[in-house]
């Protein structure tokens, strides 16, 4: 067995040279690549962490803004509800006031119309009364002698049986609005002489004017109140038709 010390020395030197060569050509570049990739990864992780933090910050801000907007929305909604309620109350009050005014106007108009109708009715009544009075007065004869003459004409115009029944009834008498004087009494007796002989004359102020013939079997109206009543009925019948 031999040991070559030259070979041993050269091999040791070769190993040291190979150490330097591989360090320069292999391990340093590969380690540099790994370190650079590690740094890039760390930078990417840092950037990702920063982006994540930025996203969280943005989310926090967005959440805060959303909360603020929600609060503002609720505030605005509350204000809108209050304003709407106020406006509704105002509208209701205005509507009630308007309804009260309309009702008052209606009542006033109704009162006015009622008064106008009452006035119109009063005028019509007055006109009717005036017409009745005019016609009644136009148909009245002059004084008790005139009424006596008209009573005689009425008796003459009556059918004979009715006139006989009237005249033959008990308690036959005349009724005047005022007691006649002697001349009027004489004129009355003269006008009714063909039918009755000096009948008794009673007084009734309700007749206003005129001379009625009454008995137990009938009555012949010949007074102003009767004429007014008859004319009024006739006019009423004319108007209702």
């Amino acid at each position: 067995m031999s040991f070559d010390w030259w070979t041993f020395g050269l091999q040791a030197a070769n190993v040291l040279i190979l150490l330097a060569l591989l360090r320069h050509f292999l391990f340093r570049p590969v380690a540099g690549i790994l370190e650079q990739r590690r740094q890039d990864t760390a930078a990417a992780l840092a950037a990702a962490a920063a982006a994540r933090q930025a996203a969280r910050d943005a989310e926090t801000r967005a959440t805060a803004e959303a909360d603020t907007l929600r609060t503002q929305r609720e505030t605005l909604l509350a204000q809108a509800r209050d304003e709407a309620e106020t406006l509704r109350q105002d509208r209701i009050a205005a509507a009630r006031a308007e309804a009260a005014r309309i009702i008052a106007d209606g009542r006033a108009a109704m009162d006015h119309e009622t008064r106008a109708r009452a006035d119109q009715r009063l005028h019509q009544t007055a006109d009717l009364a005036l017409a009745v009075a005019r016609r009644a007065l136009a148909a009245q004869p002059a004084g008790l002698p005139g009424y006596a003459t008209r009573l005689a004409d009425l008796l003459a115009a009556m059918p004979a049986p009715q006139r006989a029944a009237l005249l033959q009834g008990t308690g036959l008498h005349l009724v005047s609005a005022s007691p006649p004087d002697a001349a009027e009494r004489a004129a009355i007796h003269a006008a009714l002489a063909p039918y009755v002989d000096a009948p008794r004359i009673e007084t009734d102020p309700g007749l206003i004017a005129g001379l009625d013939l009454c008995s137990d079997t009938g009555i012949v109206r010949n007074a102003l109140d009767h004429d007014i009543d008859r004319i009024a009925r006739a006019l009423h019948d004319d108007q209702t038709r």
Partner: protein
Amino acid sequence: MESPFANPLAFMLGPVPITTTVLTTWALMAAMTLAAAWAARRLTIDRPGRVQVVLELLVETLDSEIAGTVPGDPARFRVLIGTLLLFVFVANWSSLVPGVEPPTAHLETDAALAAVVFAAGVGWGIRTRGVRGWLTSFARPSWVMIPLNLVEQVTRHVSLTIRLFGNVMSGVFVIGIVLSLAGLLVPIPLMALDLLTGAVQAYIFATLALVFIGSAVTGDEGATPPPPQQDAP
């Protein structure tokens, strides 16, 4: 058949004899350097190729193994342990080339590798702990152990040498015997086994070198397994 201890002379470089072992080593160094330079020119950060991935895996595995054995920055020992691993591996597998005898099949090469490991251990031990601290490590656990520790420093590097030499040389020798007896194709299974042995021996040599250097740095005998690492949160 030549003796496994024979070291044929290739040529004389002045007074220096250049053996075929040295010549083969130079060829392997040139090939490894050219391959490393070619691979280094193709390194990229964004789109690494297959060769770059293998190299990055090698470097990261080295760093992981070193960090698991020696506390501190693994980059301190990366070049030495990586170079030893690659050289022993390439040298062992150089037997695939017909007519090439692995340099590690010769005792001078293995002794040179062990000497480098020994020198690295001494240098890193003194650099890390100082001369006094490095010397006091031989008196542990007691001053009585100083002779034994001194002898151990020699014997374990000798064993490192003999282990590599014996495994590689025996493989080459056995293949040579079988080849001379049986023919061309019969040694192929043995060659495949020799490749496996070469790879394992490269790993063992690098690991033992790391353990020895680590013990010199930390002052402990043998490897110093680190506490289990926890994943970063």
